[in-house]
């Protein structure tokens, strides 16, 4: 039975001379059946948050619920969860079938039941041929699937995945990414997935929770995170290449970049003036900029990254660095001076440079 997961002001505090709040007052509500991705840079507390749910880390403040049960103090085995580890953590002395059936055996299921469930999961994961092998005789991708299978056979209320793809090569990662997402949809089991890779976060999650220094920054759908980042950290973290962010002085109706004024929506301007700001953190994504023949600001191209369909121009305006996405077929060359303009209204972002919060 799948279930809802709720963090209620849950904190993990590592004691020491200076106590570290690895996860700080996390409030998160994951509805039944949702695929939630926890994302953040290393040290953001995303893995710790997951391990708190697993029962592998203590919850020092607050509570965690799975369904209608408070699991805050329960040992891992009583939480009805299954976890996929980054290293897969397979049992090296057991065959694939034994690895997958271990939890069921401990639960006291009959041999026939275990075999049936393992066979079913193996079929789903294309592992039927390898059931008698030991993990060391498998490839990286196969091991990863065994780790998935070990979680699936248990039919838990929640799947926990801690960077399960980071030991795979790039091609296999993309493939497995899609497979996991499909599998989750098919099983409909609530899943919490930790990654540092924002592309994984965007492509897999129903919702994405961005963490930084143990504090939840924003939890929203990938599209919402992309279009309305709540602060400049989320703005810079989500999207690849990252959003261009620059502290620019406010002028009448916009911000001043070099010799031009980039317009800001009226609501942003009034929010900035009500907060008595002289400058704002202006943000614009590389894909929201385009080359123009007239107007716009001047950019000195320092580097051209050609990716086939697109090319990214890296350049400087004054002291601020900007990246611009252009058509891959006719990119400017290094050293060129180009003029860059906004692609459309409403594709700019502005943040308070002090609080980093979004202005709107």
């Amino acid at each position: 039975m799948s279930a809802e997961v709720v963090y209620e002001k849950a904190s993990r505090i590592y004691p020491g001379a200076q106590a570290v709040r690895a996860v700080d007052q996390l409030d998160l509500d994951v509805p039944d059946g949702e695929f939630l991705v926890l994302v953040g840079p290393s040290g953001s507390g995303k893995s710790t948050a997951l391990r708190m749910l697993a029962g592998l880390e203590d919850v020092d403040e607050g509570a965690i619920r799975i369904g209608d049960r408070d699991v805050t103090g329960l040992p891992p085995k009583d939480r009805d969860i299954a976890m996929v580890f980054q290293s897969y953590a397979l049992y090296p002395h057991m065959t694939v079938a034994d690895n997958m059936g271990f939890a069921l055996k401990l639960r006291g299921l009959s041999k026939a039941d275990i075999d049936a469930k393992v066979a079913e999961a193996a079929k789903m994961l294309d592992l039927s041929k390898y059931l008698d092998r030991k993990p060391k005789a498998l490839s990286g991708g196969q091991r990863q699937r065994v780790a998935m299978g070990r979680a699936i056979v248990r039919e838990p209320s929640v799947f926990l995945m801690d960077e399960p793809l980071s030991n795979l090569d790039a091609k296999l990662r993309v493939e497995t990414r899609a497979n996991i997402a499909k599998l989750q949809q098919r099983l409909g089991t609530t899943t919490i997935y930790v990654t540092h890779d924002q592309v994984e976060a965007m492509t897999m999650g129903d919702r994405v929770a961005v963490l930084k220094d143990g504090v939840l920054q924003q939890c929203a759908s990938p599209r919402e995170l992309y279009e309305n980042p709540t602060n400049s950290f989320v703005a810079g973290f989500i999207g690849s290449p990252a959003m261009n962010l620059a502290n620019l002085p406010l002028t009448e109706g916009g911000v001043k970049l070099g010799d031009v004024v980039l317009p800001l929506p009226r609501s942003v301007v009034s929010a900035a003036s009500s907060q008595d700001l002289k400058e704002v953190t202006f943000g614009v994504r590389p894909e929201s900029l385009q080359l123009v023949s007239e107007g716009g600001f001047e950019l000195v191209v320092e580097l051209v990254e050609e990716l086939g369909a697109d090319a990214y121009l890296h350049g400087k305006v004054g002291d601020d660095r900007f990246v611009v996405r252009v058509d891959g077929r006719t990119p400017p060359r290094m050293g060129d001076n180009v003029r860059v303009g906004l692609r459309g209204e409403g594709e700019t972002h502005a943040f308070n440079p002090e609080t980093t919060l979004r202005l709107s």
Partner: protein
Amino acid sequence: MTTLATRPETATPAPARKPKRKLGPGALTVVTWVIAILFVFPLLWMILTAFKQEADAYTDPPKLFFSPTFDQIANVLKGGFLPYVSNSAFVTVLSTLLVLLLGIPAAYALSLAPVKKTSNALGFFLSTKMLPIVAAIIPLYIISQNTELLDTVWALVILYTSMNLPLAIWMMRSFFLEVPHEMIEAGRIDGANLPTLLRKIIMPVVAPGIAATALICVIFSWTEFFYAVNLTAARAGTVPVFLVGFITSEGLYWAQLSAAALLASLPVMIVGWFAQNHLVRGLSMGAVK
């Protein structure tokens, strides 16, 4: 012996890494063989001498060709060798079992479930090996006498257990440390409690290491001489004590001594031969990650 013979092989990558002094594979083989024969030579000589007549054992230059005989081995077996073997076997097996019984929980507690003051405990274990045993032998003798353990196998069981325990804990701790943390966590999530975790997940992974440790304890106990010669006599004497009996005031009986030494080293050689893969892997696994 088997570990000694493989030592040159593990030493060879060093010259190979320096291009200046690169040896061809042929030369390496020769060097390996030369060093191996140097190490094994005393052993070969002992085996050779064990099958000579006493008169042949004394000739100078030594005879390489002679008519082999089992007389010496028969003499040794007739001369009361077996009680010593049974003493040795009893002391070795029992002390090794005790070491494992006490050492495995200790090694676990000092690695996977670290207790407070772990490093102090480890340092203490090591410090017990720093005192030369000769410095402690008189108190040990007097204690054995007062507790009526003198010339009993129990004195040796206690001493060998305490002699091997620190080493065994250090060795086994390094094997426990190699058990991946995430694997244990996976086991906990799969529903294993501590006994199941230990039996089904941790022990199978550290088993080769424990086997290697046990073998080391067996070898050390079997070959221990100093305690045995000082604390035992006719009743509880072990094999090394028996060997010394051949050094008499009338001189050395080389052939008989060699025959006895051969018999004494056979068990260790046989066990070592069967366990050599485990042993080498076990010894190197702890040292290099």
